[in-house]
């Protein structure tokens, strides 16, 4: 390629470059005129090698040598001109072009001119003309340059550089405002098509030239042809960076083109003209940019409606285009800037209707690649909802509430799980609550609180849900209220569980616990109540007190009395002393809890535990009304445990504490049993005496008690006490005789033990008398006792008889003794008549003894004084005669006894009778069995 072509191209590029640089941004003041004032600046080229200067000198020398040969000389001159021009250009490039002396170009021009003049038919004169034009142009002689170029175009229309020549002509004509000629030149240049290096420049300038000629419609085609080349197939971004993919120069070129197109369309019929053109031309990929640019231009001019319509035109013709929503947004923006609120609102609704997430747009366009659209959908939905929300709050109209809710719901339907959805949901709940749709507000608050990951409004929503629950519950009938309230409680629990740090958490839980308790749902009430009191930091005292009340009462009603007791202590510590009634109730419950634990332990057979519980009430709640019963029960349990000493201690204390208790009689009986079992006979006896003298017991019980008392006193050796009790038995219970007479018998023994003879005798007579008056109750036993008594009564009679000595005068003493003997005989006979074997043998023996001693006494009696031997002998014979039958009588009586042996009677008196008989009749009765003194055989 030759140098001059490069320079021209460089100049042309410099023109556009400088123009672009100044109009990098569109400004309102930019007009078509501003383009005309742009200066042409020459960009310095590369350096010229030194070899060029040598060649020039050689050519000069050559011209001097071969000046006769015209061809050689012409060629040499042209070459020399080229070199001269290059040398000048090189120098220009090396130094400041302004300082160049004009005559430097003149040298080259002169050379070319000489050449043309010398060789008018030189075959390369097209090149010479071209160089000459360059030389003129370089030297600032543009008129002459244009003439040369015109000549060149005219004479050499087929020269290879014709496209450049035409373009340069166009440029020069354009500068001279000869737009018609320029248009032709540019058109010719552009006519060489894409193969020409000047094609795009030509299209650009052709468009501009037609624009200058006000041929707007005609200007479109070259501009669009240029755009097709520059951005056809290029992915355009949105907004200010839409041309980022292009180089700076091209970007400016495209922007210029956009700008002039917008102006053109605005001079025409606006968006309609775009449509018309594209209908004919075909819709380019960047069509939306063309609309957008025009809209933007209108906006700059504050032609808002035109702007909106322009944007909308694109949307209208290709609503599913990925960029269509963005233009729709611009529509809204245009109305907004224009101050048309109702149009804005309508546009927003349209936008949402068209590009809502359920629209067909999203079938074609993936959400991930259209995040800006998604953001606009959200923003518009939010705007719409808030708009109506504000209206509703202002005017209170239900229709506005509904509309706000509708838009919030749409947002949530489109973006159910977006990070922003939670706050939108909260707003939805709020609007529902404000519109008094508490049921749906409840749902939405709950959804806000629990459906999303925790967010700033979570806990607030959770609490608001509870408030909404309460509001709605007021509107429900009884039946519906139950189920609703159950849900409310669940929500409350959920709230407290999810948002323990919420300031109302404790209050909510407490309220739920109370509710659950009042519904009889004790298990849950306890669980919730315990959650309240376990909260950290602790809830305030009022809540804690309420919670402990619920826990304690619920545990109590669940029969968890141990837990209830603990809970009541907690409650007690939170009940102010000034609230006397409350404190009393709590303490009463503590006592009841303890008592119930005792009852349960007792029923389970754990008596020790039962006692522990029953007795500790005294320490825990000494003033409790149930304490008395508990201590009584403790004693009963101890008795069942056979812990007699402990039982009696408790019972004694009980009697001391409650002397007038309704259990007094029972306590006495239990004490009696305990003392008996623990071997405390005396204490036991005293209790039995109490029983015997208590009016509430039956006669049989009292009588039995007296008997037991007497036995116990006897065991304890307390004779006087025993006697007192027995006397009472005899006095109070003459019937049945069988018992009464035993009492008398025992009294007899006591009298004997006390050595009280008079009393003993009286007791004996009592026994005899009791038996004799027993009538049908007379028995072997009464008879035996009476018989025994009677023989005892005989004893003093016998002793008196034995004590009487026969002394002289014998008649008198015998008479006295005989009288005594008759008395003795009578008493023993009467004793024997009872027919009681042992008494009969005794009586028989004693009778025999009476006869024997009387006989012996007679024989041993004092002999009368003064008898001689004979008389004495006769006296003694007479005495023997007198005593013999008496002795015989004695023997008969002894034998009567010994004869009983064969019948199996071999008691003391029979044995004694045998001994007497052995003495009195040894020949017959002194017979003793024989035995070896020692056995000498081994076997």
């Amino acid at each position: 390629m030759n140098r001059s072509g490069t320079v021209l191209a460089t100049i042309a590029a410099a023109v556009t470059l400088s123009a672009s640089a100044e109009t990098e941004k569109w400004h309102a003041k930019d007009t078509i005129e501003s383009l005309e004032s742009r200066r042409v600046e020459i960009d310095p080229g590369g350096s010229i090698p030194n070899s060029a200067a040598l060649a020039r000198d050689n050519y000069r020398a050559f011209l001097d040598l071969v000046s006769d040969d015209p061809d050689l000389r012409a060629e040499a001159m042209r070459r020399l001109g080229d070199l001269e021009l290059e040398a000048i250009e090189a120098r220009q490039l090396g130094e400041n072009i302004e300082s160049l002396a004009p005559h430097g170009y003149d040298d080259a021009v002169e050379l070319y001119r000489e050449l043309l003049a010398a060789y008018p038919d030189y075959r390369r004169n097209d090149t010479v003309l071209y160089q000459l034009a360059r030389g003129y142009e370089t030297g600032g002689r543009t008129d002459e340059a244009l003439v040369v170029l015109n000549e060149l175009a005219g004479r050499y229309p087929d020269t290879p550089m014709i496209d450049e020549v035409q373009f340069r002509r166009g440029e020069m004509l354009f500068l001279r405002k000869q737009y018609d000629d320029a248009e032709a030149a540019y058109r010719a240049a552009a006519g060489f098509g894409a193969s020409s290096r000047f094609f795009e420049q030509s299209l650009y300038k052709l468009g501009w030239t037609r624009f200058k000629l006000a041929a707007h419609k005609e200007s479109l085609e070259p501009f669009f042809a240029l755009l097709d080349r520059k951005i056809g197939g290029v992915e355009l971004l949105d907004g200010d960076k839409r041309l980022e993919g292009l180089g700076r120069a091209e970007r400016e070129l495209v922007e210029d083109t956009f700008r002039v197109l917008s102006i053109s369309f605005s001079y025409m019929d606006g968006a309609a003209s775009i449509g018309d053109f594209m209908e004919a031309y075909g819709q380019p990929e960047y069509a939306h940019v063309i609309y957008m640019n025009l809209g933007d231009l209108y906006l700059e001019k504050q032609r808002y409606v035109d702007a909106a319509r322009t944007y909308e035109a694109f949307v209208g013709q290709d609503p599913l285009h990925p960029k269509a929503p963005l233009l729709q947004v611009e529509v809204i923006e245009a109305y907004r800037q224009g101050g048309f609120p109702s149009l804005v609102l309508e546009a927003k609704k349209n936008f949402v209707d068209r590009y809502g997430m359920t629209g067909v747009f999203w079938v074609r366009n993936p959400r991930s690649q259209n995040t800006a659209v998604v953001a606009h959908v959200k923003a518009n939905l939010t705007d719409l909802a808030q708009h109506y929300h504000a209206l509703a709050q202002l005017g209170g109209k239900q229709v506005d509430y509904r509309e706000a809710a509708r838009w919030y719901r749409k947002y949530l339907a489109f973006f159910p799980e977006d990070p922003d959805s939670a706050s939108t949901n909260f707003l939805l709940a709020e609007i529902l609550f404000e519109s008094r749709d508490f049921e749906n507000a409840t749902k939405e608050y709950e959804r806000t609180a629990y459906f999303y990951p925790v967010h700033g409004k979570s806990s607030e929503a959770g609490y608001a849900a509870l408030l909404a629950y309460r509001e709605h519950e007021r509107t429900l009938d009884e039946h519906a209220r139950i189920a609703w309230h159950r849900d409310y409680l669940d929500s409350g629990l959920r709230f407290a569980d999810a948002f323990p740090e919420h300031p109302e958490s404790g209050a909510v839980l407490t309220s739920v616990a109370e509710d659950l308790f009042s519904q009889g749902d004790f298990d849950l009430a306890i669980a919730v109540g315990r959650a309240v009191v376990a909260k950290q930091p602790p809830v305030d005292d009022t809540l804690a007190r309420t919670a402990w009340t619920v826990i304690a009462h619920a545990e109590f009603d669940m029969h968890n009395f141990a837990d209830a007791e603990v809970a009541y202590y907690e409650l007690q510590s939170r009940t102010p002393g000034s609230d006397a009634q409350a404190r009393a109730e709590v303490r009463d419950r503590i006592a009841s809890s303890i008592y119930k634990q005792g009852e349960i332990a007792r029923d389970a057979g754990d008596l020790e535990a039962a006692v522990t519980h029953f007795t500790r009430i005294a320490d825990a709640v000494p003033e409790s009304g149930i304490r008395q019963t508990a201590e009584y029960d403790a004693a009963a349990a101890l008795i069942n445990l056979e812990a007699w000493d402990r039982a009696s201690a408790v019972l004694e204390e009980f009697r001391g504490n409650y002397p007038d208790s309704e259990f007094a009689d029972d306590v006495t009986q239990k004490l009696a049993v305990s003392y008996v079992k623990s071997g405390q006979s005396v204490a036991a006896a005293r209790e039995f005496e109490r029983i015997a003298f208590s009016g509430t017991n039956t006669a049989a019980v009292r009588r039995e008690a007296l008997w037991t008392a007497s036995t116990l006193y006897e065991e304890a050796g307390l004779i006087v006490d025993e006697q007192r009790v027995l006397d009472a038995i005899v006095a109070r219970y003459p019937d049945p005789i069988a018992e009464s007479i035993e009492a008398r018998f025992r009294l007899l023994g006591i009298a004997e033990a006390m050595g009280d003879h008079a009393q003993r005798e009286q007791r004996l007579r009592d026994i005899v008398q009791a038996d004799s008056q027993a009538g049908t109750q007379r028995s072997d036993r009464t008879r035996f006792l009476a018989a025994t008594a009677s023989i005892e009564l005989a004893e003093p009679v016998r002793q008196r008889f034995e004590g009487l000595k026969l002394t002289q005068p014998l008649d008198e003493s015998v008479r006295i003794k005989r009288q005594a003997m008759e008395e003795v005989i009578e008493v023993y006979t009467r004793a024997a008549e009872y027919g009681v074997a042992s008494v009969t043998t005794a009586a028989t023996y004693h009778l025999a003894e009476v006869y024997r001693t009387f006989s012996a006494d007679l024989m041993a009696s004092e002999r009368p004084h003064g008898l001689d031997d004979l008389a004495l002998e006769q006296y003694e014979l007479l005495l023997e005669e007198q005593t013999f039958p008496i002795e015989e009588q004695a023997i008969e009586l002894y034998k009567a006894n010994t004869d009983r042996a064969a019948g199996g009677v071999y008691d003391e008196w029979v044995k004694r009778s045998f001994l007497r008989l052995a003495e009195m009749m040894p020949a017959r009765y002194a017979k003793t069995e024989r035995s070896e003194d020692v056995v000498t055989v081994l076997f």
Partner: protein
Amino acid sequence: MSLPCFSDRVRSLARSLICIGALLVCGCASTGSLPDGQRGAGGDPAASDVPPRARALFDQAASFLAAGDFTEAELRFEQFLLQFPDYPGAYVNLALIYARDGGEAATRSALDAALAIDPEFAPALNQLGLLHRRHGRFHDAEAAYLKAVTVSPEYALAHYNLGVLNELYLQRLDAALEHFKQYQELAGGDRQVEKWIADLKRRVAADRRAANLADGQS
């Protein structure tokens, strides 16, 4: 066989004996039982099968008893029984000693032990009869005496005692008469018994006459 009613002193002694004389006890084991033919009251005291040591120990104990040293006799018979537990004679001697103190239970125990070894040991049966009689069990006494005279017809003491029992306690004069007669036949020559026989004969005859008279009257 257990050792009945021995004092603690005897038991401790027995224990030491067992320790010292284990060998001795083993050597005596063969004397534990005797051939039936050599058993019975009045058996020859010099019977050949009695170990000499047993005989000697027994005789020593018996001599203390005969001498009235009851304490020593009791000790020795008890020691004897530790080594030779199968001789009823020793038990009967112990029963004699216990009966002196009126210890019915101990006496009865010793007699039961003797009779467990030999239920027909006449001295034991006789002592049992005595024991029953002392406590008024006259028919039990009679049974014991009768068994004694049945198994050992020559055992005179039992007849004597049957005479006393029948006359005084059972009022069976003819039976008494018969047993006294038997006694006289076996023991012979007791003048007092002879008088009793005469008295009984007279009384029996009188009773018989009275009975006949009663029968005739009726």
